[in-house]
């Protein structure tokens, strides 16, 4: 009986720990399968704290990558980009050079009505490595809302 109660208590906790971006290829990066989690700067925010941005989930990781890791991150993000709504400027923006993405903001298709999902990527080339930032977010915010909230005037 005690075991059943314990399972019932822990079940919601395990659900909370499930990452929102599950099912995406970039989940490998968030899960630390490309770069060790200890070497990444991670933030995960859910709920009321994001209300002012009309978001429900905001998950980011920042890390330094070598050539190989950058190429892998690039490839994983590109594969997830296949799930984008359209190439229209209202749904995505992207800059790439020589087959590598420098930055991208992409709205993904979503089956849940009223919820928008976005993935963002930024790669900054430094002298000895690349600084990569990866973002997953979901909520009611449109891309126009996000631009308004986060684009420097």
């Amino acid at each position, binding site marked *: 009986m005690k075991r059943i109660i314990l399972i019932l208590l822990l079940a919601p906790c395990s659900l909370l720990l499930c990452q929102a971006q599950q099912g995406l290829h970039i989940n490998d990066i968030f899960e630390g399968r490309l770069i060790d989690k200890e070497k990444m700067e991670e933030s995960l925010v859910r709920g009321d*704290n994001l209300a002012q941005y009309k978001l429900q989930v*905001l998950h980011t990781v920042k890390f330094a990558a070598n050539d190989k890791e950058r190429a892998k991150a690039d490839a994983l993000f590109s594969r997830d980009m296949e799930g984008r709504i359209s190439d229209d400027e209202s749904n995505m923006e992207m800059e790439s050079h020589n087959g590598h993405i420098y930055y991208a*903001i992409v709205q993904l298709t979503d089956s849940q009505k009223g919820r928008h999902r976005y993935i963002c990527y*930024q790669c900054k080339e430094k002298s000895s490595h690349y600084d990569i930032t990866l973002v997953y977010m979901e909520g009611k915010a449109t891309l126009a809302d996000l631009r308004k*909230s*986060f684009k420097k005037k």
Partner: protein
Amino acid sequence: MIRTYLNRYLEGESTQEELRQLREYLCSTPDLPADLIPYAKMFALLEEKQPTPSRQALDRFSAERAPSSRLRVILWPLSAAACITAAWLLLNWHKEQADLRLGTEALTEIFSHEYEPEQLTQLFNEP
């Protein structure tokens, strides 16, 4: 003489004998001068014996106030749990705020993307 004793009493200098005589005079003289009546009342008040609670009454009082040993056993873990929960909530709130700051900074950087000098060099040197 009595006024001298009274003055010495008020100065805190009277002896036990002077005090006894003063008390006796103030408490037993029927026609006291008007200015001495307040002192007589004061002495009468000091002479009144304060009621002392009985041993049983004291025991009953402490039994009503002190929590039972069973209640104490329950209260200690509850207090500890409340403290741990409060500390956990505080730490969690701090982490959430730090995460929110990191997340919004990352988004601001992406939405206001600027090329690094190395990237600009590469872009401009493109054949």
